């Protein structure tokens, strides 16, 4: 391995000093002269048609400047081109409690809030839908007039090989049903946006968004303005986790209000409103059936997901595909079939939360495998180790796996945790469980179809030796600004803290698609690497000329540019820039990154491919109180295949944060609604929505497995989302080891555990979980033979209907 000076070192983040000083400006910290404040009136019924909305009385209130209703912004928007189903303010219908109806802008927030109560909105209630089952049973009234049919938004049916044949070939076939309740991101920063309009017809929006580029597009569309006149600046996010990845109503509303009033307009959501924005984890009811040989090798798997999508499309179509995509990249699956359906319900829309669409199926799969191992009398860790997907292979659903360090991850956690001495060997009430997972280092395809780069970086070198990096990516706490600086610093041999990083400003920075799907380190890192290498080349040529040495022998290190054979023969970095600028003119370079094409050629093949997959294995040790059912995590050991850590301290921070969030999802977090009382959110506050505190968080032992991936910058893969995934099933499996009950429903609450323990004591089935699987009318599957059956990634024309 080569010697890096910056890469792989536990450096401070470039923005850390500002953060500890309280100097980082988040969106709500921005203050502008003559700034106005906006408040939204939100629906208090779950489903209904919107009649007359009279904001007159509100406008009459002293201090109120203007207001908006649905008709003022009639154009739809949405994150995916195929589901442009949102209005900035409800035009014809409201679809959940919290759906915005009207907006008021006033001199101060208190006045705006007071004025909201004066708006007269006529809402005519319609029958509402609160669950997956109900959505399947109730085609009318439709929540949206598009989608598969009735209240089914999307159906996906894919078949890679004949699974029935796989089951016939198996020594053992097992079927399980698992329900994963929805949960939300709960970033500590509430969403906020500030819009400003300048008299020459230009609009600027500052916002706590993870995807300034998509917000830019949505604003242009809804406001009917040329994108060239709109500037979106993403402020540092006070936590995102996927919750700030959609263009939101409030962003569009303040932009329009700034345009109408000619004054800056700010909105900051309350915590309750953040719950209504949601876009969090979809509740998914899953059924998985696998055929296995005696050694646990999988001959066929049929996976089905029913997703509760909430009131709008959001990323839902992608989420539906994701819930069936990544099952294949960890263990060999010879034949694979996936059915997925997403429903519309009258709840806040679901979307991408850390792990987007994959933690739920991963949970179901890993629990299912734990049961299979038990059926076959195999050690679940060994069974997994023996059936890994080989590196550099293509899966049944045509995902291209490159480096694959899961085996090492498993070995590390087995050893670290003392698995062999503990599994099935600890006293009643204490248990240990294992699970594995994989995640994308960036999605292979963009959200809207285009063949442009996913990430771009511009580098500007100053005569004084200053380097500025411009990139559209936004730091949501994961450290992406620092990654840009580290990469450039490594290549140019300078101090990362001397680099100016300018990010997430659609006027100044080249497009980066956004901080989602763990794509930033890999994609903008690669773009930065390319830009920096180009700059290095220019400097090396100029310096070599000056030093009269071959340019290939120039070294960049410690702020100097010198000859490898004689370090004395060199110059400062700044001098090298001067030399280069004298030779070539102003020094600016660009880099961009487009992921490699994936082998899948079928409809839906766009979801799942990634330039590189990260892998994680987790072992959880828990205590379960048999008298109360209360589960507490003692310790989690987690191995993560990172490829190469750009900064191990940040990587471990992401691992621990992911484990933390997984722990919360496993044991307590849930989006619960009162389906009989207007489908109101049951716990829209930080007190009632239970996020683990210092008391619940357990010790975490992290092992980083480094095997540089050729597709990553310096070999790096993702870490932002992956480590959350195995935590949840590892805990579920540990609960089983502790008290012998299966809770096939997340979160694993004490009520469920105790009920199962009681059932076990009475000799009944010690399992809590779904028992019924409502079937939507599935569509004809798309049949794609896997590579080893001679497939070429394209669907075969027709398949004779099997039953």
């Amino acid at each position: 391995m080569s010697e890096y000076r910056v890469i792989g070192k536990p450096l401070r983040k470039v923005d850390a000093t500002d953060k500890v000083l309280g100097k980082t400006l988040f969106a709500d910290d921005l203050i502008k002269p003559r700034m106005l404040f906006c408040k939204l009136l939100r629906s208090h019924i779950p489903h209904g048609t919107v009649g007359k909305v009279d904001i007159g009385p509100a406008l009459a209130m002293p201090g109120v400047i203007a207001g908006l209703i649905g008709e003022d912004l009639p154009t739809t928007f949405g994150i995916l081109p195929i589901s442009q189903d949102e209005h900035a303010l409800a035009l014809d219908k409201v679809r959940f409690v919290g759906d915005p109806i009207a907006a008021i802008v006033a001199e101060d927030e208190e006045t705006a809030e007071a004025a909201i109560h004066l708006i007269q909105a006529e809402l005519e209630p319609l029958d509402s839908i609160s669950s997956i089952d109900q959505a399947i049973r109730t085609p009318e009234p439709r929540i949206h007039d598009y989608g598969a049919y009735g209240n089914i938004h999307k159906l996906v049916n894919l078949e890679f090989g004949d699974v029935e044949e796989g089951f016939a070939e198996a020594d053992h076939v097992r079927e399980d049903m698992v329900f994963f309740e929805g949960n939300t991101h709960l970033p500590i920063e509430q969403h906020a946006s500030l819009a400003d309009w300048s008299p020459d017809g230009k609009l600027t929006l500052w916002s706590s968004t993870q995807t300034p580029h998509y917000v830019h597009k949505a604003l242009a569309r809804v406001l009917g303005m040329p994108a060239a006149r709109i500037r979106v600046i993403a402020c540092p996010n006070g936590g995102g986790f996927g919750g700030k990845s959609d263009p939101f109503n409030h962003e569009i509303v303040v932009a329009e209000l700034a345009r109408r009033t000619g004054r800056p307009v700010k909105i900051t959501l309350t915590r309750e409103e953040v719950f209504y924005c949601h876009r969090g984890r979809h509740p998914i009811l899953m059924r998985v059936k696998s055929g296995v040989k005696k050694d646990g090798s999988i001959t066929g798997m049929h996976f089905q997901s029913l997703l509760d999508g909430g009131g709008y499309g959001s990323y839902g179509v992608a989420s539906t595909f994701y819930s069936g995509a990544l099952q294949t990249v960890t263990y060999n699956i010879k034949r694979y079939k996936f059915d997925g359906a997403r429903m519309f319900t009258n709840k806040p829309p679901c979307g991408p939360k850390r792990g987007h669409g994959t933690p739920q199926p991963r949970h179901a799969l890993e629990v299912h495998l734990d049961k299979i191992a038990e059926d076959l009398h195999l050690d679940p860790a060994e069974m997994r180790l023996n059936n890994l997907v080989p590196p550099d292979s293509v899966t049944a659903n045509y995902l291209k796996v490159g480096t694959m360090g899961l085996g090492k991850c498993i070995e590390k956690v087995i050893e670290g945790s003392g698995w062999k001495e503990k599994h099935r060997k600890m006293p009643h009430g204490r248990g240990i469980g294992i699970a594995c997972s994989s995640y994308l280092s960036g999605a292979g395809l963009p959200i809207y179809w285009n063949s442009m780069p996913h990430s771009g970086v511009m580098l500007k070198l100053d005569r004084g030796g200053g380097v500025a990096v411009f990139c559209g990516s936004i730091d949501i706490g994961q450290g992406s600004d620092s990654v840009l600086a580290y990469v450039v610093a490594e290549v140019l041999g300078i101090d990362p803290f001397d680099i100016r990083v300018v990010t997430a400003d659609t006027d100044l920075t080249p497009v980066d698609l956004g901080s989602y799907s763990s794509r930033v380190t890999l994609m903008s890192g690669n773009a930065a690497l390319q830009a920096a290498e180009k700059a290095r080349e220019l400097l090396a040529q100029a310096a070599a000329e000056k030093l009269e040495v071959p340019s290939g022998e120039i070294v960049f290190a410690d702020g100097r540019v010198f000859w490898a054979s004689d370090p004395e023969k060199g110059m400062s970095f700044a001098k090298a820039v001067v030399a280069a600028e004298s030779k070539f003119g102003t020094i600016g370079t660009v880099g961009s990154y487009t992921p490699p094409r994936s082998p899948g050629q079928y409809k839906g093949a766009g979801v799942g491919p990634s330039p590189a997959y990260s892998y994680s294995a987790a072992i959880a040790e828990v205590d379960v109180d048999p008298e109360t059912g209360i589960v507490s995590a003692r310790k989690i050991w987690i191995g993560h295949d990172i490829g190469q850590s750009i900064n191990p301290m940040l990587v471990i921070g992401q691992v621990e944060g992911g484990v933390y969030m997984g722990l919360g999802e496993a044991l307590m977090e849930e989006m619960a609604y009162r389906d009989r009382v207007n489908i109101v959110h049951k716990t829209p506050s930080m007190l009632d929505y239970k996020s683990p505190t210092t008391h619940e968080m357990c010790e975490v032992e992290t092992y980083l497995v480094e095997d540089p991936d050729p597709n990553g910058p310096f070999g790096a893969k993702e870490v932002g989302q992956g480590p959350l995934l195995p935590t949840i099933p590892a805990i579920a499996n540990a609960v089983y080891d502790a008290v012998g009950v299966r809770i096939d429903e997340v979160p694993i609450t004490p009520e469920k555990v105790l009920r199962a323990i009681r059932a076990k004591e009475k000799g009944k089935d010690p399992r809590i979980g779904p028992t019924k699987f409502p079937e939507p009318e599935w569509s004809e599957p798309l049949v794609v033979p896997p590579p080893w059956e001679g497939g070429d990634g394209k669907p075969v024309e027709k398949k004779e209907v099997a039953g």
Partner: protein
Amino acid sequence: MCPRNSLAALPWFHEALPRLDSPPTTAYPRPIMYKHRVIDEPGRRLLRMTVNDSAIEIAVRPHKTLLEVLREDLFLTGTKHGCELGECGTCAILVDGEPVLSCLVLAIACEGKEIRTIEGMADGPELHPLQTTFADLGAAQCGYCTPGFLLTAQALLDENPDPTRQEIKNALAGNLCRCTGYLKIYEAVELAAKRMRNGSDSEAKR
């Protein structure tokens, strides 16, 4: 005497006063004049306090929380907020050295008090040891919860220079962080405590 403890239960209550579906701020009843003592009006009132060692004089209305006054009147936006209901700890600041939640403290109740916010934690260009360790060990990811954690941790170390892991957990149990899982925060507090102890040791020896 009222039949129930709740104001709303009184039949005349709603007649005399507007209900909430009309705006509470504007439809405020005329101030009741009290005979033996003039009651503070809901208008502004002069408040004197010390904020980060500077004497501050500012006119505030009684219902303004310290959080609002710090952020909106004094432009000390380093103090963050996540719920405004006492449920997250993000808005924690020090009042006379004790961590309290600025979202639930009235500004006018801070008359004569010493307030410390994140802006006043460093000593000029010198970061507080906790700020250094938080930055160096990655205890601030998004950094949004960080000011609240830093000030709460500072109060802990002022009182207990050598806290155990459990004592740190207990002291920080009123602050939520969604990014770090707290572990890096504990490490940062431990390292800062160690450095501060060593620092004061060496000072004592000198």
